[in-house]
């Protein structure tokens, strides 16, 4: 019987099979690339030091500073002493153990999941791990990529392997084409709303079908990025011409004969016709619409055209209670049209939507408009390279002219570990991945949205799509004092 893509990649990395092992030890899986950042690594390096262990393969390891770093005054020492200590600890550890690091101020610095692909280090058929749940992003290239905890970070540093139970496989087939104005983000938010946050638990998910094939690499990364938000172990997409074209010429991509050998192998990385998945979900792309969340987990979402749901309408008691609690926290009333929800801050950025295509899309929507008087728009590129590219294209000028804040690269307001945070009660429309209570700052209220919805919301001052702006004259609001 044939194999799925995930099974092929998995099998190529089994150092020692777990089948029949006397202590039920699972497969020992080789790791091709280990990405590291400052938050989940210090205790792992400490563990190595305590045990007198070295990093087995520093040449398969890459570190960058992203979670804690400020996006303003990046040429100055980090103001928060605790953040500064954590970043400095990473620098010391990288130097001591011989790991390549792209620190704040380096042209290759940025969010770890933006940096890997743009360097060409993320390639089809690899196993990639990082002490960060959004490692699933790299699955867009046909890699098995997943987030790990700090104990596992230490394990990979010491052994370049991980004992891993073989997950089940699932196919999410998205037939048809996405309608105009509907993005990869809307697709994944709609899927999570349908499955719930635990729907993918225990599965490696392969996204396939026409709508997936039609996505750019950046859109595919957005989809795979949020696999973890419906509980999947990993999400991946079969590599194709789009994938190869994206990788070719990147700094760490194979060259010459190596390129040909690599592509020849990558072409085999597809699910065989006679392979079977443990579960399948089918979606029709043509039925999808701009999607926004109303609650405090990524599964609590509705199309933008709908209303805040009434908890009483949920048949499951757990869902009803969760919806009630979410509406209380979010300060929302059931029945309110989503388009009437006023927003204080709009965040464009993160490993979900902080790549160059995202910034182009935001600029296209916002061009010629002004950010609404009572709203602020924060645009945070996912990496320094993305920032430089955007500036070369003049996108920064469009943002500046609209009254937006153009920042340095990092995770920023996605999780508020740096100074970019919501105040208690402040409401955001965010292109990031989590709307958990307090995620973007204590007491902050987050609506997850696509890039076009974020940009349109910044102009309108309430949740909106670009079509809403076209109906109104440009610059309907007073500009903010700068």
């Amino acid at each position: 019987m044939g194999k799925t893509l995930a099974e092929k990649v998995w099998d190529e990395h089994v150092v020692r099979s777990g089948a029949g092992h006397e202590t039920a030890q699972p497969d020992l899986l080789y790791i091709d690339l280990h990405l590291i950042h400052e938050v989940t690594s210090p205790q792992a390096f400490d563990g190595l030091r305590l045990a007198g262990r070295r990093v087995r393969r520093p040449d398969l390891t890459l570190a960058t500073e992203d979670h804690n770093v400020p996006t303003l005054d990046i040429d100055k020492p980090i103001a928060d002493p605790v953040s500064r200590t954590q970043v400095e600890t990473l620098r010391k550890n990288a130097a001591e153990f011989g790991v390549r690091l792209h620190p704040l101020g380096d042209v290759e610095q940025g969010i770890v999941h933006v940096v890997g692909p743009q360097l060409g280090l993320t390639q089809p058929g690899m196993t990639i791990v990082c002490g960060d749940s959004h490692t699933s992003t790299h699955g867009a290239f046909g890699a098995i990529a997943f987030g790990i905890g700090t104990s596992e970070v230490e394990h990979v540093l010491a052994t370049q392997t991980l004992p891993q139970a073989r997950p089940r496989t699932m196919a999410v087939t998205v037939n048809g084409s996405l309608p105009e104005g509907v993005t990869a983000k809307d697709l994944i938010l709609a899927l999570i709303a349908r499955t719930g946050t635990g729907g993918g638990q225990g599965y490696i998910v392969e996204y396939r079908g026409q709508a997936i094939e039609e996505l750019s690499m950046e859109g595919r990364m957005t989809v795979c990025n949020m696999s973890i938000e419906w509980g999947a172990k990993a999400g991946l997409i079969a590599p194709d011409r789009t994938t190869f074209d994206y990788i070719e010429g990147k700094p760490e991509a194979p060259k010459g004969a190596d390129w040909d050998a690599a592509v020849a192998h990558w072409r085999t990385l597809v699910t065989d016709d006679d392979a079977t998945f443990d579960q399948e979900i089918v979606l029709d792309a043509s039925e999808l619409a701009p999607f926004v969340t109303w609650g405090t987990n990524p599964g609590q979402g509705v199309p933008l055209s709908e209303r805040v749901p009434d908890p009483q309408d949920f048949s499951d008691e757990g869902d009803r209670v969760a919806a009630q609690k979410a509406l209380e926290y979010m300060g929302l009333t059931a029945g309110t049209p989503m388009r009437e929800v006023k927003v204080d801050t709009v965040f464009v950025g993160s490993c979900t939507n902080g790549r160059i295509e995202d910034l182009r899309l935001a600029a296209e929507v916002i061009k010629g408009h002004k950010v609404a008087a009572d709203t602020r728009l924060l645009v945070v590129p996912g990496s320094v390279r993305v920032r430089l590219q955007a500036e070369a294209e003049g996108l920064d000028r469009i943002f500046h002219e609209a009254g937006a804040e153009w920042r340095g690269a990092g995770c920023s307001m996605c999780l508020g570990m740096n100074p970019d945070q919501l105040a208690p009660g402040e409401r955001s429309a965010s292109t990031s991945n989590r709307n958990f209570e307090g995620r973007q700052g204590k007491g902050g209220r987050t609506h997850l949205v696509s890039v076009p919805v974020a940009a349109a919301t910044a102009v309108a001052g309430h949740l909106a799509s670009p079509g809403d702006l076209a109906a109104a004259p440009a610059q309907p609001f007073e500009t903010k004092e700068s």
Partner: protein
Amino acid sequence: MDAFKTHTGTALPLRRSNVDTDQIIPAVYLKRVTRTGFEDGLFAAWRNDPEFVLNRPEHEGVSVLVAGPDFGTGSSREHAVWALMDYGFRVVISSRFADIFRGNSGKAGLVAAEVDADVVEKLWGVVEADPSVQVTVDLEGCTVTAHDLVAPFRIDDYTRYRLLNGLDDIGITLGEEQLISDYESTRPSWKPVTL
């Protein structure tokens, strides 16, 4: 890691589903570079509410957490497990755990015991009726006992084996170093390197 065979203690009924890792410990507590002392961050936002179940005097000294489904969703932060353990929890019982949280628990020595949803409901009932009830979690028999309630729980065999024996995962893998070297000699030359 200390071996875990059985544990008996009082339990905390946390009637919430989707307890994500940002609730277990907010990101602001993750800036530390140490491995202990995270108990102050545990459920930090919810603990501001004096009525939050963990603040109730009848639940002082709890060591078994009984929570709704999809416990530990969200980020990969092992700090969530450390915060629970630093506070004094040895076991979390739920009908469904997020994968990464479950994995982190097994590495750090916290028992993530998966039970059927009706067992969670029954445990909530027993503990709310008598907060002083002693709950026993037996890893050898994979059972949870509270008063006359005896229910099985699920945990993967390898994690159970390691916890019962208190074994260091890395030490076990390094025992297979030759296999790792053998595998490395077969990797294609075009695979990327960072140095």
